[in-house]
Every structure is written in structure tokens, then in C-alpha cells.
């Protein structure tokens, strides 16, 4: 009896100590006096997305260094806090929470995939912080705490399709994508758009493949077959990162040349091409808002500084990098305008902020938290760069809610007073989507 009692007491004692240690170990180290402004970097450095996101981490670090060289912001130095969400979506949310709650960062630059953004959204809303999201995406979103510096579908996909119709006389379309939300939505929008332009349903082929799909023999053969129906055919590719290399390799292998069936891609940039021998791909297209080959003094200087920073004179630049840079500069400007890093002050201050982009114009943050962008169409060259064959004359405003989709055609976002709403329904005149 006695034995049992002491045993239980001992156990309880150990338990208490254990729990306390556990709690303490996990608890934050108390933040010492803030001499710096912390900037969170939430990009995967390992796992499947590291391939794309690591560069963006470097870009933010580069921008922080540049800004500090200029004297920082509000007289304080910036300090980047890097975490690795490891391409794991729940971990994105956890790390976002850590950045905001424990590290007390003023702003976060991060995410690549839509799912990672969706995963962190509730955290940013709950903790009222700011996220800059630098990647082209499917739209259908506008949140108070998020600023989207990548393209919405109308800033990338639709101009690309227009180009193919006008310049290549394309009549038949293959919409090939990885099976996730960005291709699904973009293709839905494109399908509606093409039909509105008089393209018949049988002239549209839609194909989805899983992530990392590596055996493209059948699908490329199908595309070839579809393309031999006597009408000029093009492929609109929303194939995601990893699957692109084998896709293009198979195109080259099966001898599909850009002059026969051009492929226009929305997720293939300089970084992705760096891993492919592009000689067989010359002439295939990509639509972005920035190319490394943009011929402006701003871009030239940026590339020079970037290569100096990264200590690699072959390192390429790409569109999401430009979007990160624009976002960063907008944030700096807005903080200086607001005189504080307080999100509630910075968020309204960001609307209307205009900064030079790298293609020679200015990009402005619109009330829907998306930015204005030029659209560039480039053809792949044999050196892995793009030859810009078309550039929209002006800047295009993002349609965060696509007019081509059933659910969103009546929605708009405007984060200014009095609307202050990300999904205002112009029909019902109410905030909150379709309303009751």
C-alpha cells in the first residue's frame, strides 16, 4: 500500500515537472526591446516546393539588405526572420502563427501554392497581420490582410489567349493542367472566355494530370492527335512546376514544334527553363508580367545587384521575384506613409501606393488588394530566356473575381471605406458573397 502511494506521488511529481518543462520549452523567449523591424519570410526551403520558393526567400533577404543600406525604414533596421514550412501546408499555418505571435513580425512575405495561402489565411485574419503573396494565382479571393502582387487570371491567361488568337490564328485549344485549383479555375475562366469568342466545345480539350506527373507519352500523343484536325491548335499549359520538365522533354522527343502546335505556359519561367535544354522548345510561349529579358535600365540594374548579392553571375530572375520586389517596396512606402508598422494603419495606407516595376512602368496597389500590371508574352529562346513578342500597351487591373465564373460574376472587392469588403455583391448590395 505504502509502496503504491509513494509511487503515485513520485509519478505526479515527475509529471508536474515534465509538463512545466514542456510548456516552458515551447513558450517564446521574451522579446527584448525592439530596435529592429522584423520581416517574416515564409517560403519552403525543403520539400517539393523548395525548388521554386527558395529563390523568393533570397529575394526578400536581398531586398532587406538593400533597404538597410538605404537606412532602413522609419529609422530602424529591418531584420528578416526566416522559417521553413517545408512544403507542408499545415506547417505553413503553424509557422505563420509563430512569425506573428512569437517573432512579432510586422509583415510576412510568403507562400507560393494556393493551398499554402489558404492554410495561412485564417491566421493572418485572426492575428491581424499582413501577407504579401507574390505568385500568379486563380483569383477568386480578396482578403483584408493579404496583398496579391502576382497576376490574377485576367492579367496573364486571357491576354495570352488573345495573343494566340490574333497572331497565330489559333482555332483549337488544349487546356492542359495539373489537377489543382489554379489550373481548374483558370481553365474554367478560359473555357468560358473562348466560348464567348465563338470557339466550339469540340475545339476545346481539357486535360488534368496529377502533381509531378512524369510520363507524358500518352498525353503528348493525344495533343498531337487533337492538333491534327485541320485547325490551328495551341496548348494552354497550367502544368505545375515539377511536371513541366518531363512534359517539355516529351514535346521535344515527339517532335512537336512551336510552329506546329505552340504551347503557352503560365507557370514556366526562367527558373523552370534553367533545368531544360531549350533548343527543341524555341518558340513555345509563356505569359508573365515580367521577363528577365525586359529591356529597361531598372531591370538591368536590378539583375546586376541581385547577381552581386547572390554571388552568381548566371542566376536568373523571374516574375514572382519581381512581384516580391514590388510588394516589398510597396510595403516600405506604405509604412513610411503611415509612420508606423501597425497593420491597421499600414493596410489602408497600402491602397494607392505606386512603385516602379521592372518593366518600365509603375504598378499601383488597387482597392481590391491586387496590383496593376503589364502583360508580356514571351517566346522561349535557345538560351533559356524569353523573347518578348508582345506587351500590352497599358497596365491591366486585376479582376480578383472573374466575370466568367458563375459564382463570382457579381462580386467585387473594395477595401476602402465605406465598402470595406472583399466580396461585395453588386446585385444584392451586400457584403458576403451571394448573401442569404
Amino acid at each position, binding site marked *: 500500500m505504502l509502496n503504491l502511494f509513494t509511487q503515485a506521488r513520485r509519478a505526479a511529481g515527475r509529471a508536474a515537472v515534465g509538463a512545466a518543462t514542456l510548456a516552458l520549452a515551447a513558450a517564446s523567449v521574451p522579446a527584448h526591446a525592439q530596435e529592429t523591424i522584423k520581416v517574416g519570410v515564409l517560403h519552403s*526551403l*525543403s*520539400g*517539393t516546393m*523548395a*525548388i521554386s520558393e*527558395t*529563390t523568393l526567400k533570397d529575394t526578400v533577404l536581398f531586398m532587406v539588405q538593400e533597404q538597410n543600406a538605404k537606412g532602413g525604414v522609419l529609422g530602424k533596421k529591418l531584420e528578416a526572420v526566416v522559417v521553413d514550412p517545408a512544403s507542408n501546408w499545415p506547417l505553413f499555418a503553424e509557422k505563420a502563427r509563430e512569425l506573428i505571435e512569437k517573432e512579432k513580425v510586422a509583415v510576412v512575405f510568403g507562400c507560393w501554392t494556393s493551398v499554402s495561402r489558404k492554410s495561412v489565411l485564417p491566421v493572418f485574419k485572426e492575428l491581424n497581420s499582413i501577407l504579401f503573396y507574390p505568385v500568379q494565382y486563380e483569383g477568386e479571393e480578396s482578403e483584408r490582410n493579404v496583398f496579391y502582387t502576382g497576376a490574377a487570371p485576367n492579367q496573364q491567361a486571357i491576354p495570352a489567349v488573345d495573343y494566340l488568337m490574333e*497572331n*497565330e490564328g489559333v482555332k483549337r485549344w488544349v487546356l492542359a493542367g495539373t*489537377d489543382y485549383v489554379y489550373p481548374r479555375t483558370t481553365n474554367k475562366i478560359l473555357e468560358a472566355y473562348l466560348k464567348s469568342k465563338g470557339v466550339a466545345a469540340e475545339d476545346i480539350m481539357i486535360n*488534368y*494530370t*496529377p502533381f*509531378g*506527373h*512524369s*510520363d507524358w*507519352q*500518352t*498525353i503528348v*500523343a*493525344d495533343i*498531337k*492527335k487533337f492538333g*491534327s*484536325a*485541320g485547325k490551328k491548335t495551341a496548348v494552354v499549359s497550367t502544368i505545375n512546376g*515539377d511536371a513541366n*520538365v*518531363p512534359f517539355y*522533354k*516529351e514535346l*521535344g*522527343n*515527339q*517532335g512537336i514544334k*512551336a*510552329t*506546329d502546335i*505552340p504551347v503557352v505556359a503560365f507557370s514556366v519561367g526562367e*527558373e*523552370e527553363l*534553367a*533545368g*531544360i*535544354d531549350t533548343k*527543341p522548345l524555341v*518558340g513555345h*510561349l509563356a505569359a508573365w508580367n515580367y521577363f528577365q529579358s525586359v529591356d529597361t535600365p531598372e531591370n538591368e540594374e536590378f539583375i546586376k545587384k541581385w547577381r552581386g548579392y547572390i554571388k552568381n553571375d548566371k542566376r536568373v530572375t523571374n516574375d514572382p521575384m519581381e512581384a516580391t520586389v514590388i510588394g516589398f517596396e510597396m510595403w516600405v512606402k506604405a509604412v513610411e506613409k503611415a509612420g508606423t508598422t501597425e497593420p491597421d494603419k499600414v493596410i489602408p495606407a497600402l491602397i494607392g501606393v505606386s512603385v516602379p516595376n521592372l518593366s518600365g512602368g509603375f504598378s499601383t496597389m488597387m482597392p481590391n488588394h491586387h496590383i496593376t500590371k503589364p502583360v508580356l508574352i514571351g*517566346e522561349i529562346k535557345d538560351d*533559356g530566356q524569353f*523573347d518578348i*513578342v508582345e506587351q500590352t500597351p497599358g497596365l491591366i487591373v486585376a479582376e480578383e473575381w472573374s466575370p466568367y465564373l458563375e459564382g463570382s460574376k457579381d462580386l467585387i472587392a473594395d477595401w476602402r471605406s465605406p465598402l470595406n469588403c472583399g466580396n461585395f455583391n453588386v446585385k444584392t448590395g451586400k457584403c458576403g458573397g451571394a448573401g442569404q
Partner: protein
Amino acid sequence: MLLALAVLSAAALSAAALAGRAEAQDVGGALAQLATNKYDDTEAALSVLALSGDPAAVGIVSALAEGRLVFGGTPPRVFIQGEGGALLDPLTRQPVADAPAVKPVRVNNRVRRAIEAASGALSLVSPDPAKRLEAAQAVGRSRDVAALPALDAVLAKETDPKVKSALALARASIVIGQAGVSEADRIAAIEVVGAQGNQDALALLRSVPADASPAVKDAAAAAIAGIERNLALWGAAQNVWYGLSLGSVLLLAAIGLAITFGVMGVINMAHGEMVMLGAYTTFVVQELIRTHNPGLFDWSLIIAIPLAFLFTGLIGVIIERTVIRFLYGRALETLLATWGISLILQQAIRTLFGPTNREVGAPSWMSGSFEIGQLSITYGRLWIIVFALLVFVALLAVLRLTRIGLEMRAVTQNRRMAASMGIRTNWVDAMTFGLGSGIAGMAGVALSQIDNVSPNLGQSYIIDSFLVVVFGGVGNLWGTLVGAMSLGVANKLLEPYAGAVLGKIALLVIVILFIQKRPRGLFALKGRSIEA
């Protein structure tokens, strides 16, 4: 690239045939158009050049194709950039004295097509039959009506039967969908095109205008039906070929695992990383060749194969000596340890080479394709199948015929007995693991040709590899061969019906059910197995 500097003899072209088009415009006007650097103008200029018959036209078109046609100055003029960057007058080919700053005339897909058509039209009269053949095909592809008179002219004179039939096909391709062609002419064209029996012919046949006469339409419909039947058969063969090709990739990925896992019983989660290391070895070899001896590029894969084998084999031996050897008889712990090793290797490569894809080029003998009937076979895939089978045969030979192979089998079958017979089991273990890893490395060389060379490369093969080995029967190399090939073919036969994703899911379910039927795989080893 389509066109060498073959000098066009103006006399050879029937001037009468071209008179209708080229009257108002001249080469000079075309050059002025080229200098505006607008795609529309460039395209128009090309069609003028194609029909001009001017001896300089060939040179101008090929310069444009090669990116050596430049413009500059005020008003803008066009030059050809010669060797060493000197600017030449496009007509006289003499160096110009007051060279302005220049930029290349821009080219896009539309212009590229026009270039192809123009150079085709221009080289239809080349003395080289191979050139003429190419030109005939190019003209056929362009389906440019303007080329019709020229085609007719050369067709009458052509003597080479191959070129002649290509010319006839090109003519038919143009005529078939053209308005204002006589019924007989069109039906003849349908016959010529229909005889091709391929996908392109189908496309052409479908382009018969809707307002054509019923006889024409019937002829076209009959030809289409014939071709479609034919193609359906070939399609099935093509799918089997794709399946074998996928199977060979699976075989390559799995065969090293058949050694480390199948024979040694190590649940080797780092197997995929060995494949990745092999691919990176290829990348390094190619980089070195590019910088030091570009002439050897076509040999890069041949050079990389033994190096990849040795390098990954060495890594394998190191892993075996430092980690695996403490874990024999504890197969599950090898899963844990090799999983850790795979994380370390991935991150090591990420740190050394960066997280992005690396470019591994294809040597010329692996590019392109050829056709057997309607079966299109790409050289790259063919070589991978050949390579996979060679590796398989070589491995069998090593295990069956060599001393070390005998010792490996002895050790895996009865370690104690082998040891007591004087076999250095430690050494044999290291060699076996090294062999399996080395083979994975060689697979990496082949896979670098069709997949991403990135730190994640290995992860995408590990599940399939295990599936193949288990499906085939652990410890049986023939099982791995049959397993890989049957999974590959089954996948490719399912894909056209179910789509890529559902096809793969269906295949996984089939494998799961199959294992219920044969709990030890296709070729179960009777008696002793790795689980003993």
C-alpha cells in the same frame, strides 16, 4: 537551318509560273519591309522573297532564320551579320562602310512558319535531292497556295522518285482544301493524301471544304474511315510501346532496389536518392564537358554511366559500412536509418547544387524519332529500353557468372555457412549494397533524360520502385523485370480510358488485389525468403 547557301539558279525557276505574283514588288521593297521589324511586315517580305527568284533571297531568308539578319541606322536598313560580326550588304554581300548600331530582326512563330515556307519554296530547285525532299515537305506543311505554281513547275521536271512523291503529296496537301479546284483534281489529291494513312493525312482530309461535291466528300469520308481503322490498330500498338517504355523506366528505377531490398532485405528508403545522385553525376559530367571539351558532348552519357555507377556505388559502400552493417537482421530499423539518410542526401544536394532543376541535355543520338508504320518511336525512349535491358542482363550475369555474384548469393542465403566457408561476409555485404546503389546511379543517368534533375527526383520513384519489386516477388530479379513491364503496359493501356489519375489509382487497386491472390508476388520464392 532548313536551308544552306545553295545558290538558286534563276533560270531553273520557270519565270512564267511566278510572273503573276512578283511583278509589283521587288527585293528592295522587301528589304525595306524587313527593316521595320514588325512581324506583319516581315511575313509579307518573306512571301515576296520566296517568289522573287532573286539569287540573294536564299541568303536573306537563311540569315533571318539564323538570327543574323539585323537592322539599324536612319532610315533603318537591313544587313546580314557575317562571320565575326561584320555587317554585309544583303544583296551584294559586301561589307558596308558606315556600319550603324544594329539589332536582329525579330522572329516569332508566325514568322518562323513563313521562313520555313519561303526557304522551302526557294530550295525546291536545289541540286541536292535531300534538300529538295526537305523543301517539298516544308512546302506541304505550309500549305501555301502561292507555292502551287512553283510546285507544278518542279514536279514536271523532278526525276528522283522520293522527291517526286513528296512533291506530289505537297501539291495534294495544298490542293485538297483549296477553293476552286476541279472535282477530279481534288479526288486525286484525296487519294494521294489518303495513301499516307497517318494523323496528318487525317487532318488534311478533314479540311476538304464543306461545299465540295458529294463525290469528293464521299471519297474523303471513305479515306478517313480507312485511316481511322488503321490508326486504331496502330494506336493499340503505340500504347503497348508507351507501356514498355514506362516499364523500362520502372525497371531501371526498381532494379537497384531489387538488390538492396530484394536480395539483402534492407528496406532502402534512400534508394531514390541514389538514382538522384546518378542524375547529378550526369549533370556534373555534362558541365565539365561543356566547359572543357564540348566536342565530347554526344559521349557525355556514355562517360557518365560508369562514373555514376562508381560514385553512387561508393556512396552505397560508405552507407553500408557506416550504418547498414549494424542493422542486419533488423530490417525495420534499416527503414528508419535509410529514411534519415535520404533526408540528409536530399538536403546535401540542395545545399550544393541549389534547389532548382539542373539542365541535362540530350545527346544528338537520343533526340528525334522514327516511324515504323504509324508507330512513332522516339530514340530517347528506345535507348532507355535498350539500356534497361542491358543493365538487367549485366546484373544477371554478375550474379550468375562471377565469383562475387556467387558469394553474394551464398551470403544472402546462408550467412553463417558462407562465413564458415571462408567468404568475407562483411566485404560481400558492402559490395552487394554498393552494387545495388551503383545500379540505381546508372538508372539516374537514364532518368536524367526524361525527368527533372532536382533534389526531389528520387522521391518520385521510391514508391513505384517498391511496388514493382514487391509485385514481382521479393528476391527474384525476373519478377522485377516482369513486374515492371506488366505494370508499365497495364498503366498505359488503362490511361486512354481512365485518364492518367484514375488509371494510376486503378492500377494501385489492382496491385493490392493481386497481392491478396499471390501474397508473395508474381514470382514467389519457395522456401527461404528475406523474411526468414
